[in-house]
């Protein structure tokens, strides 16, 4: 019963995140959905993922969204989508039906307890060690990409400034040439 109500609340939050007019409201609905998902993960026995989802999904990503919306501005785009809305709803419903038909089991399901479930530390550090390396690479590439994207690009010198720099160089060149010629004359 708890899982059913949590799933319903999660679906409502997700729908509100898509349908909300303002971006900031949408980001807050998404944070609520992430929090509901983390409670569901906890109920399914995945405590570690629940904690990380709550801190990263509902915390960090929401802060990033709010920051980006405050920097970029909350654009009020007109509500006409690129494909017609009815077509989008129909395609999404067809997608849901097909997916349900393919993956939902027809017979009853019960948890399998015969398979040995090794401890998390062993799975994480020994069996899935490559995943950790991939995660480190992902984090570094993400940080580098973010730095590259958010770096301020220096504008090129405009014509007047370039002209001024050229004139200064010409003046220095003339001064140097006159000094050389003077020294040569005094030497003679």
């Amino acid at each position, binding site marked *: 019963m708890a899982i059913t109500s949590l799933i319903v609340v999660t679906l409502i939050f997700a729908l509100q995140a898509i349908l909300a007019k303002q971006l900031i409201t949408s980001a807050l609905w998404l944070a609520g959905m992430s929090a509901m998902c983390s409670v569901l*993960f906890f109920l399914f026995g995945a405590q570690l993922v629940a904690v990380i989802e709550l801190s990263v999904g509902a915390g960090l990503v929401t802060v990033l969204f709010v920051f*980006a919306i405050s920097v970029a501005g909350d654009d009020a785009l007109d509500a006409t989508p690129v494909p017609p809305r009815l077509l989008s709803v129909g395609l999404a419903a067809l997608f849901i039906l097909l997916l349900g038909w393919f993956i939902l089991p027809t017979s009853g399901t019960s948890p399998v307890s015969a398979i040995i479930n090794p401890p998390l530390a062993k799975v994480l550090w020994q*069996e899935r060690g490559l995943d950790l390396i991939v995660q480190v690479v992902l984090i570094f590439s993400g940080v580098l990409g973010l730095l590259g994207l958010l770096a301020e690009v220096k504008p090129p010198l405009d014509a007047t400034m370039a002209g001024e720099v050229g004139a200064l160089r010409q003046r220095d060149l003339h001064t140097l040439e006159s000094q050389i010629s003077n020294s040569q004359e005094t030497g003679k």
Partner: protein
Amino acid sequence: MNLSPFIIAFVGMIGLLGIGFYGLMVCRNLIKIVIALQILVKAALLGLMAAGNLNGQINLSQSMALTVIVADTIVAVMGIALGVQIRRRVGTLDVRELSRLKG
């Protein structure tokens, strides 16, 4: 009708996938598209957790879900940074306007 929690979780996962898919089709704002992607990833995580619990290998699911969460966060961060830069340079977050850009 007494449904098992796993069936309910799978139904919820399919519903979340449908909502995310609909959001990808309907939304034109770049940041909202990233939000739709986040919903899709949450659906994948929910399915992963339910399947892990069903198979009795929840720890394997957790280790896989960690990678998914890291990748999802990187995707969100890059999408947000791209949105901010596009807004600065082009002045809009509308993907329809961006697709009209030439050159």
